[in-house]
């Protein structure tokens, strides 16, 4: 693994980026799948499970990204994020709500004072197909409206055509537009197709200043598959060793059950290390997951299996 990552200040050439990214060790897909499958056999029970479930709740970026989203829907989501289980005052809040940029102001108002963050997708989500000026304007507006986190998409077309410089420049520019907001860079791994590309895109994004690397928009399948998350966790681990900077990871899309979430936490622990077992460095983009986590929490607490009608749907 290279000792120096891409410095964000410079504007690297395509050739330099290509040399760096293609010089990364390859990923054997079958081996990566097997490692992820092996970790999925870890058994997390009783006290460990209770701790993991609470942590997972606190890592959820509760998400609604639909054309039909309304202020009412967003307020309901925010209420759920603040207080996921009205029957249990000990249930922690979710990490953030994640909405389209035009609804940031509504969301921001709705979570005020709760500690729940507001994440906004930006940069012509989900396709990323818009001029840079539009993407930057989108970002600035979201931050101005109160977004604490920006989830941008990379230009997959540029990445796949080898124009790494364009991807790098866009991330750098959006990072600047974020000001104090945190930047999560969505790689849309389902469109990158290979794990080699996932590794390269991870390093490209980290080098350009991403605070988080995120798997997917949720609009493309496959999304956050275990081998993809594994490879991204390896990337942040190696980036820390190379640069001293810890970048977060956010799988999004396809994580629907508490079991999936706990498997992700096991991967976090055994691949990136326990330092990442923290909402500051690991998030899960999801909507239906939250209720399953709460049902499992309730099961552990009461010993009885929970029913969906006892948990709020918003």
């Amino acid at each position, binding site marked *: 693994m290279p000792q120096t990552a891409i410095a964000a200040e410079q504007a690297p050439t395509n050739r330099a980026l290509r040399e760096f990214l293609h010089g990364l060790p*390859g990923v*054997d897909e079958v081996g990566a799948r097997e490692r992820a499958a092996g970790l999925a*056999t870890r058994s997390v029970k009783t*006290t460990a499970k209770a701790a993991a479930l609470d*942590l997972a709740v606190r890592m959820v970026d509760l998400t609604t990204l639909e054309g039909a989203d309304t202020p009412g829907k967003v307020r309901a989501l925010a209420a759920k994020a603040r207080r996921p289980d009205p029957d249990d005052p000990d249930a922690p809040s979710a990490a953030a709500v994640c909405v389209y940029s035009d609804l940031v102001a509504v969301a921001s108002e709705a979570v005020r004072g709760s500690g729940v*963050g507001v994440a906004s997708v930006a940069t012509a989500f989900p396709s990323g197909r818009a001029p840079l000026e539009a993407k930057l304007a989108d970002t600035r507006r979201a931050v101005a409206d109160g977004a604490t986190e920006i989830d941008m998409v990379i230009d997959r077309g540029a990445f796949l055509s080898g124009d790494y410089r364009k991807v790098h420049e866009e991330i750098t520019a959006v990072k600047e537009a974020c000001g104090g907001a945190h930047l999560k860079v969505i790689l849309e791994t389902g469109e990158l197709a290979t794990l080699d590309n996932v590794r390269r895109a991870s390093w490209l994004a980290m080098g350009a200043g991403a605070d988080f690397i995120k798997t997917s928009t949720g609009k493309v399948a496959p999304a956050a598959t275990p081998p993809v998350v594994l490879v991204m966790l390896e990337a942040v681990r190696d980036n820390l060793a190379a640069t001293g900077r*810890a970048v977060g990871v956010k799988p999004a899309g396809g994580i629907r059950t508490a079991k999936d979430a706990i498997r992700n936490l096991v991967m976090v622990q055994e691949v990136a290390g326990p330092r990442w077992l923290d*909402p500051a460095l690991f998030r899960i983009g999801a909507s239906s997951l939250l209720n399953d986590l709460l049902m499992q929490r309730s099961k552990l607490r009461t010993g009885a299996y929970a029913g969906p009608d006892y948990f709020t749907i918003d």
Partner: protein
Amino acid sequence: MSSEDRPPAPEGGNGAGGADGAPGDGGASAAGGGVSATGGGTSMSTSRKGSRLDGQPLEYAPAPESRSVVRLREAYDPFIDGEFAPAKSGEHLTTANPADEEPLAQVAVCGEADVDRAMAAARRAYDTVWRDLPGAERGKYLFRIARILQERAREIAVLETLDNGKPIKETRDFDVPMAAAHFFYHAGWADKLAYAGMGPDPRPVGVCAQVVPWNFPLLMLAWKIAPALAAGNTAVLKPAETTPLSALLFAEVCQEAELPPGVVNIVTGDGETGRLLVSHPGADKVAFTGSTEVGRGIARTLAGTGKRLTLELGGKGANIVYDDAALDQAVEGVVNGVFFNQGHVCCAGSRLLVQESVAEEFLDRLRARMALLRLGDPLDKNTDIGAVNSAAQLERIRALAETGRAEGAEAWSPPCPLPERGHWFPPTVFTGVTQAHRVAREEIFGPVLSVLTFRTPEEAVAKANNTPYGLSAGVWTEKGSRMLWTAERLRAGVVWSNTFNRFDPASPFGGYKESGYGREGGRHGLEAYLA
């Protein structure tokens, strides 16, 4: 990777040595504020309710598989001619759980009269029932056995773990399903032997005397019995002295399948029982898996008898990592190569040959990965490394590891407290090893890796082949032509490229040189059981 970022050592014990204290509530140590993601900008830490884990290891609570699925008998008789009946020898040995040294059961030590009786039963079954049973019908018995093994999988897995010391994860996910798969695969051959490449009308060999080792007791039994029976032979099998129980359970499976009496016979005992079996005049074919030393002796004994012999013996497999390898997967492969089954694997990748240009980085990653291995209670579902099978084997591993230190190699093991009772050896890697070190030449058969470096592909191949063994080898490179070039030159019966320790009933397995002769698995494996 700096040391502070290395994953922490597992808590060891993992419940094995009575360490059943649950590891905290997992949230005991949440620091005041969340760790900032980048050191700059707004903290992404969020609300604080409930138990907190931030940045602290997620302790896996003990997750032991229940022993209650296994009903152990106090004493076991040999299985001869379809029945369990007391051995004429009247002698017994005690088989114990290597993880806590508690006795499990008394098992007969079969003597000459018992072996005679078993061989006679096998001969009778061969002459009167099995040889002339249509292949399709023979196959159906094997299918039945495969299904029963699947049905009783959990029971067998727990029993195997108790008797052997290997982790339940492996017996559950590897040994037992693979044993069932061997029967399923060979069942289908029974009525298709004319297509096995031995001519249009191949005949069975006769009565097979088979001796299997303790490292994969049931799976090695399946490798021996499934092809023998499919080809129309009958068998007398002796399980290892320290791991007889799964073979005896397999005898019950044969009864449940209503396999005709005498087709499979299980004689338990020690080395002397094995010697009686392989040198028995009634054997038409001998099959042995075990040490090269014993294999040599069997080959000598059978010289001039005209009896068929296959031997699957020791190894000192080289795992070659080129500088362009997919490093993370190569680390996994090396770990799987030598720590799978506590390294009690004849085809273990016990010599790592890593290209000098990436050696340091690779070893850093390897050590970090080794620190994640969880050693302890074999019945715990999260255990990666179980107990060494016997005190004798542990002594051998210790002695060889000691020569490594004495000869100047540097040993490293992750922090890894060992349970107080039972036989344990921590995963260990030796660096600074040369071809002249005993740890680079002798089969250790334990969780011990010797690391050597090389500069060029020629040097890698020369070092890999510089051993009297020739069972397995690994190659790690992202360059296809180099992989094929290397695989072509490795003098080993199985070459795993960009993977390691993969097995399949359809894939022939066996060695070159002093690793033995003959193949097991696939069409090639049938050759040993057909005339």
